[in-house]
């Protein structure tokens, strides 16, 4: 017997093999029977008879063989995977430095991407953790989440309590409608009321709030419908799981505890489940209070029955079978009718209907969503580019390593390993690295997203969104890993496995590189990678340059205020019941005492303060001015004390400042800013003109240069300033004392607070230098600039490392040639120049490709840039220069090394 081949039939051959085998048997048997004297036909019939049921036997043999074949395949595949993994593990262990570099850089890339995506998921994508969030329907403008509008004019973006009641009781699309409004800053004492109160984040909500959302109590109970039955204000509160853990040490006995809120005793009745953060993404209430408690807690500003106070956003649960468009139709009509019926017909009412804000409520309300959408996507693009560059670098490293493994691959190929098998094996090695990197990357991500939230927030308080890893985030990370693996692992694996056996087997170490299907090939792919890296890093560096420049423009923008010398002091006068005459008295005392302090240049006060986040606006009538629409007669305003312009360091263009003679009873006066003066009285003096609010005529006594009162990046808007103490159109609520210092205003904080407490020790005072407030107001811009700068530096580093690696490789291949050149009289400088020139060719090519690409990409930044055009040439020049400099440094080291080649040694090596 001679063996021909190992019996391992291809799946398609199984049936044929069985047929052959059985045919052989019949043939042998027939021949034997013929040999015994039978006729061929009879012999064949007899053979078949002896065999039995041929078809049945054949079928069962085929079935058995198929089963066996698939078992063999499966176990072989498993065995190969085991081998590949073991092998990958060994080769990783053998080269720990390489593995560490790959794992760490990749972990950084994956981690950064996951961190940003965590935020994208938390802020933009995730649905509320409530019952059937898709049924929810949002009524109101999400960016008005923390607003209170005081106006006769009825609105559709934010609602009054009577309007909420109307919708709740009459809308037919919904099984329930909840209302939620800002809680504001409430003084809370958990224990005895001494020392400073705490200010947890609060929210006033309707009694059906939790039942409409479908959120049960974690312990205790939530609010019930009866909790806001008219005329009742049950003294109860529900606290969040976080607050319960932090302030009550997760004690079940917290239920039933009494806390003091604004001096009122409230009983804690329940704790919400962990993970529930209310219906507003980007805020995290710790204390929920029944709406009906509002007038009890703020007796000086009851906002419940007065239709002027519009401060609720509504979330409704759609009835089964009611679509979003049906709900939208019903609500649009309802809101428009309400506005038409309830807004007093005065002045020129806009012909344009009030915009309504109706949307799916599945993801709740959020102002951060709008605010962070573009920055988040920008960051996403940034980290995506960084990951691309990291992949390119790792691919480069793998290519370099391929040179060293040419012989190994050659040996394996010649021992009969298939090319596919080699590719699979190399990919397994990359996969192992990628798995380690993903694990580390997830750690990086959890830290990273927390740090980002901290950077985006104010005062060391992170933006309160849930940054825990979620399933979509994990899915994203896995996808990212696969993608990265495909990017950096596949090409080197394919190339490494393409070994020219003959030259490898010649076993000359110097020809190994060429055995690898080419040193030139390796160089070419390396050059392509470098060009791509230069182009990519240019995008990141240019983006960083633009954002940093924009930030510095923003920081140094002229506010029209003496911003570095101002101290803003928030005085809770209303909470102590200071009204009318008593408040005037208080203001006189405060001004007098603070002015007397050393280091104080001027003192005044206003209702809204500066950069406080609180602004007022109103409608009025301007005699002689024809308004096109309602916006034309709207302006921002504040109520300010005597000497206001002087105190904020503003500039009077015309007329006079508010003075201490502008008191209740005298002719009501206002200051207007330049924008307002030019808008209503172009080419004329504004002083002496009047505007009318209801029946009150307000006379312009001064014009001041435009100031940026509440945002650095705001365009000039119309503003006017009423005299605080005249109370001409309404009674001011808040009180902010503005102190202009001769020196550092921070030093004045405590002395000023002490003076105010000396008048009334119970007065609550908060103070902050304006510069600090302003810095916090641009926290997001600072974060973006810092992150973009970080990405830029990282990109530079990656590109430089890549270029360094490539040039080192290229010059090492040319040692002989360089030696020859030097032997023929080339100077060291010539060699350095030659190598640098080669590097610059690559960098130049990258820049040529990169510049238009970078400009196209950074156009996306347009809306985030302040006073810097997206195509800013200065930034572009800086970016190109920085990149070229980094490249020169990276190429200089191999160039110098090459120039130190000893010609004799080099030539002998050849």
């Amino acid at each position, binding site marked *: *017997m*001679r*063996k*021909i*081949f*190992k*019996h391992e039939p291809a799946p398609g051959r199984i049936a044929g*093999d*069985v047929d*052959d*085998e*059985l045919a*052989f*048997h019949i*043939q*042998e*048997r027939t021949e034997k029977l013929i040999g015994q004297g039978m006729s061929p036909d009879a012999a064949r019939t007899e053979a078949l008879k*002896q*065999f*039995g*049921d*041929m078809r*049945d*036997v054949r*079928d*069962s*043999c085929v*079935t*058995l*063989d198929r*089963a*066996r074949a698939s*078992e063999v395949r499966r176990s072989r595949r498993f065995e190969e995977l085991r081998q590949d993994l073991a092998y990958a593990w060994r080769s990783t262990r053998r080269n720990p430095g390489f593995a560490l570099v790959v794992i760490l850089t990749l972990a950084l890339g994956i981690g950064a991407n996951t961190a940003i995506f965590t935020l994208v998921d938390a802020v933009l994508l995730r649905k509320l953790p409530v019952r059937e969030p898709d049924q929810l329907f949002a009524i109101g403008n999400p960016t008005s989440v923390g607003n209170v509008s005081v106006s006769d004019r009825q609105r559709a973006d934010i609602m009054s309590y009577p309007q909420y009641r109307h919708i709740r009781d009459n809308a037919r699309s919904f099984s329930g409608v909840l209302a939620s409004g800002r809680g504001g800053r409430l003084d809370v004492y958990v224990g005895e009321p001494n020392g400073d109160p705490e200010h947890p984040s609060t929210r006033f909500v309707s009694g059906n709030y939790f039942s409409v959302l479908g959120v049960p109590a974690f312990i205790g109970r939530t609010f019930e419908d009866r909790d806001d039955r008219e005329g009742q204000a049950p003294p109860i509160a529900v606290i969040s799981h976080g607050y319960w853990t932090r302030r009550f040490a997760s004690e079940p006995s917290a239920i039933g505890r009494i806390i003091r809120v604004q001096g009122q005793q409230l009983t804690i009745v329940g704790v919400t489940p962990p993970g529930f953060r209310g219906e507003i993404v980007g805020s995290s209430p710790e204390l929920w209070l029944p709406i009906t408690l509002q007038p009890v807690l703020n007796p000086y500003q009851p906002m419940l029955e007065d239709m002027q106070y519009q401060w609720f956003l509504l979330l409704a649960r759609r009835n089964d079978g009611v679509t979003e468009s049906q709900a939208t139709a019903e609500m649009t009509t309802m809101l428009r009718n309400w506005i038409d019926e309830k807004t007093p017909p005065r002045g020129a009412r806009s012909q344009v209907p009030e915009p309504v804000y109706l949307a799916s409520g599945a993801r709740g309300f959020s102002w951060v969503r709008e605010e962070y959408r573009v920055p988040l996507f920008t960051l996403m693009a940034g980290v995506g580019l960084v990951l691309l560059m990291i992949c390119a670098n790792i691919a480069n490293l793998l290519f370099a390593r391929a040179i060293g493994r040419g012989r190994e691959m050659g040996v394996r190929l010649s021992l009969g390993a298939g090319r596919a098998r080699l590719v699979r094996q190399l990919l397994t090695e990359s996969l192992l690295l990628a798995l380690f990197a993903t694990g580390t990357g997830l750690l990086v991500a959890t830290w990273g997203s927390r740090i980002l939230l901290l950077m985006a927030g104010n005062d060391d308080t992170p933006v309160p969104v849930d940054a825990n890893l979620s399933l979509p985030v994990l899915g994203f990370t896995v996808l990212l890993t696969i993608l990265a693996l495909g990017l950096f692992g596949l090409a080197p694996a394919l190339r490494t496995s393409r070994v020219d056996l003959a030259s490898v087997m010649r076993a000359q170490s110097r020809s190994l590189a060429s055995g690898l299907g080419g040193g030139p090939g390796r160089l070419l792919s390396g050059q392509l990678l470098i060009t791509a890296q230069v182009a990519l890093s240019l995008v990141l560096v240019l983006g960083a340059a633009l954002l940093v420049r924009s930030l510095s423009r923003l920081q140094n923008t002229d506010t029209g205020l003496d911003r570095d010398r101002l101290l803003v002091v928030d005085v809770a006068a209303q909470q102590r019941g200071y009204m009318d005459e008593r408040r005037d008295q208080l203001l006189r005392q405060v001004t007098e005492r603070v002015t007397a302090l050393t280091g104080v240049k001027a003192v005044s006060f206003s209702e809204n303060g500066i950069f406080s986040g609180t602004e007022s606006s109103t409608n009025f009538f301007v005699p002689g001015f024809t308004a096109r629409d309602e916006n034309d007669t709207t302006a921002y305003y504040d109520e300010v004390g005597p000497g206001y312009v002087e105190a904020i360091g503003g500039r009077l263009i015309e007329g006079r400042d508010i003075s201490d003679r502008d008191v209740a009873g005298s002719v009501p006066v206002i200051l207007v800013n330049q924008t307002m003066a030019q808008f209503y009285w172009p080419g004329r003096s504004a002083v002496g003109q009047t505007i009318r609010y209801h029946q009150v005529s307000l006379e312009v006594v001064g014009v001041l240069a435009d100031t940026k009162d509440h945002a650095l990046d705001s365009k000039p808007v119309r503003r006017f300033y009423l005299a605080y103490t005249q109370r001409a159109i309404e009674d001011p609520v808040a009180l902010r004392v503005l102190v202009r210092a001769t020196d550092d205003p921070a030093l004045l904080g405590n002395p000023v607070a002490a003076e105010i407490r000396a008048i009334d020790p119970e007065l609550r005072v908060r103070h902050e230098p304006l510069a600090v407030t302003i810095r916090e107001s641009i926290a997001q811009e600072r974060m973006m600039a810092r992150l973009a700068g970080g990405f830029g530096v990282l990109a530079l580093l990656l590109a430089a490392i890549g270029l360094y690696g490539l040039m080192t490789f290229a010059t090492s291949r040319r040692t002989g040639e360089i030696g020859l050149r030097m032997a023929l009289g080339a100077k060291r400088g010539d060699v350095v120049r030659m190598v640098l020139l080669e590097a610059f060719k690559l960098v130049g090519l990258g820049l040529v490709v990169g510049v238009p690409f970078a400009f196209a990409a950074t156009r996306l930044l347009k809306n985030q840039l302040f006073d810097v055009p997206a195509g800013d040439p200065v930034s572009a020049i800086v970016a190109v220069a920085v990149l070229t400099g980094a490249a020169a440094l990276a190429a200089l080291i191999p160039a110098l090394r090459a120039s130190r080649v000893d010609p004799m040694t080099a030539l002998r090596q050849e």
Partner: protein
Amino acid sequence: MRRFKSQLPSAAAPRTFPYEQDGKNPMMDPDGGLLRGTLDLLILKALSWGPRHGYAVAEWIHGATDHTLLVEEGPLYTALHRLERKGWLEAEWGLSEKNRKAKYYQLSRSGRQQLRAEITSWERYAVAVSKAIAATT
């Protein structure tokens, strides 16, 4: 009375073959009329001297048992393929004495162990059964 425990290996585990489940020929005993497991033992024994093709195995069984045991030859092949799947046999294509392509089977290492185990248990079984039928009381 001595206690006896059956250790017939291939009878111990119930076999489910596709064609049995198909119910194509439920009355046909898959081992061609042999006591279950006996055919396996005979095949293993037939291959204990070296590789043979299926026909040679059949001839050996006919000769060794005086044509008494193997009624039909078809089930022999089912058994060969089954034993190959179990890993007791390895198969290779080769050329027969008459230069025809034939599938040769040989015992694997585990097949050899299996043969030893089956012989032992068969002998114990046979002794026990013989003893039982020879009993006079």
